[in-house]
């Protein structure tokens, strides 16, 4: 009995340690955003600050234009991008799920092949910038990632699994394919639609590569790219705080809270969604099992 108890304690201990390895870094980020700059510079990063100092947040809120711009852009392309992607992807997924579509095999292969082979980054980049003129455009966040072959195939498989009797009955009643798609198939497919749209939304929210490659215009940086800039370039952060802010706050001029401001920005930019996404955990885990794709 004693051995059994020890065994159980050991297992919980390992799991708790693993969880701490994830939680402790978060505590660090939160604490550092509330530590005075001189304390960080002299004493290094500490898990719990000796005293709380909010000058980093004050400096950011003095001139939050950049943060607000990035929020607007990121919310804009995440929501619009997810909606457009879902429209485009569900439509084609429905078409290739239907037995009546004579060319479904050809179209499926046309979609599937893009998963197997890609031209590589360079041709993509040149075509997007030179031929499609997407540099510095809001649409570069949306169009190049509008559809995802894997997600289309997941939805196709789900649509195929719906009872055929329903669609056949509607067909006999003279319903068009559009009606069947809108009135019968979509309402029955809520689980897969939720999973795929959340996966798409998460990918878009976390997008920094697009800005890295295509956006030079500071106003159009996505949130994640803004964070990368702040982490890599102390100067970028300073100019952000000073820009358009002729009278720099006394507090700021004295301490220049570069380090703490970094972490405060991380909290403000990434915090809200980090709290929201875990609530949708079950849809993401469903995505794992739902992905039994067959060609």
């Amino acid at each position, binding site marked *: 009995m004693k051995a059994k108890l020890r065994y159980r304690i050991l*297992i919980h201990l390992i799991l708790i340690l693993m969880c701490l390895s994830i939680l402790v870094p978060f505590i660090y980020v939160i604490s550092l955003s509330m530590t005075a700059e001189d304390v960080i510079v002299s004493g*290094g990063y500490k898990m719990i600050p000796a005293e709380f100092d909010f000058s980093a947040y004050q400096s950011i809120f003095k001139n939050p234009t950049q943060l607000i711009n990035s929020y607007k852009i990121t919310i804009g392309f995440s929501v619009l991008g997810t909606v457009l992607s879902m429209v485009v992807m569900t439509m084609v997924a429905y078409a290739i799920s239907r037995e009546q*579509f004579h060319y479904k095999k050809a179209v499926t292969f046309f979609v599937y092949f893009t998963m197997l082979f890609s031209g*590589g980054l360079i041709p*993509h980049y*040149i075509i997007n910038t030179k031929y499609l003129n997407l540099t510095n455009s809001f649409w570069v966040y949306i169009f190049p990632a509008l559809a995802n072959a894997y997600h289309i195939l997941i939805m196709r498989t789900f649509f195929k699994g719906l009872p055929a009797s329903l669609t056949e009955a509607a067909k006999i009643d003279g319903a068009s394919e559009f009606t069947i798609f809108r009135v019968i198939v979509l309402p029955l497919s809520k689980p897969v639609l939720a999973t795929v749209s959340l996966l798409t939304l998460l990918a878009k929210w976390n997008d920094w590569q697009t800005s890295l490659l295509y956006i030079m215009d500071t106003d159009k940086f996505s949130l994640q790219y803004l964070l990368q800039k702040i982490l890599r370039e102390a100067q970028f952060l300073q100019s952000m705080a000073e820009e358009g802010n002729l009278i720099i706050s006394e507090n700021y001029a004295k301490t220049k809270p570069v380090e703490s401001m970094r972490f405060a920005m991380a909290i403000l930019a990434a915090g809200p969604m980090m709290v929201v996404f875990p609530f949708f955990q079950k849809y993401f885990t469903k995505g*794992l099992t739902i992905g039994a794709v067959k060609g």
Partner: protein
Amino acid sequence: MVLKNDYNRSLKKPSAFKRFFSCWEFWLLCLPAIIYFILFAYWPMFGAVLAFKDYNYAKGIFGSDWVGFDNFKFFFLSQDAWRITRNTLGYAVVFLVTNTVASMAVALLMFEVSSRKAIKTYQTILILPHFMSWVIVGYITYILFNSEQGVLNQLLTVFGQEKIDWYSSPQYWPFILPIVNIWKSVGMSSLMYYATLVGMDDSIYEAAVIDGAGRWRQTISISVPSLIPMMTILTIMNVGGIFRSDFGLFYQITRDVGSLYPTTDVVDTYIYRGLRTGDVGITAAVGLFQSFVGLVLVVFTNWVVKKIEPDNAMF
């Protein structure tokens, strides 16, 4: 008679044209996706001919002059070729092995926990990093490895050791990167294995208990073997992507520091840098090489999966 014959034939085989247009509703539904894939997938695929060209911005992709295999020759004869191939494949293999072992271990540990509440809590926390971008993970590694204020160097000082300048010491990164990779992905990837364990028939364990097997014995003789089929399939399927790396991991966590390239430069970061420095032809060649190897590997692994477990084959 003749008329009837004609009629029959037309019923059996409507003209290709008619057949095509009888599906107009479906074509309309496919149209946006087809336009998308032509513009953003197939056009760049043809653009990959760039690998055989001396790219000239004014002449464009298809107007530039052909140079045959010069770009490939230049790359394969350079020192970079060996370095990035070794790093890409090396990390892929290490990630594959460490990730598989870690996620199976976590699933087995989780399976030993009986309290539903505890399982839920552990899972929710372990999955958290999955929702983070590599940029955010980069912040966390920066807190650890920053040479002045970093947590690890503070610890080293406490134990009386010299501080280490992590971001200019390439020898540590082959250990750091796999740990970071596991940290981010183990919660999510252990779920597949955990689901397999939960789906097992309880009677096997009951029989083992009657035979006097303890928890450890049950884990070794029942749980682990039951995970092997899932492990085989997942591993084989991952082999297809072995020549592709997660650009975010190698770009954000190393902060793209030049002194770390000897041990952290992979194909994807190399191509990105080529784009920045303007070596378009050579990097396009590397990209095409990567895509081609990827295609061969996927087709090969799919063939293997088909032999072992036809249900899991992709095509």
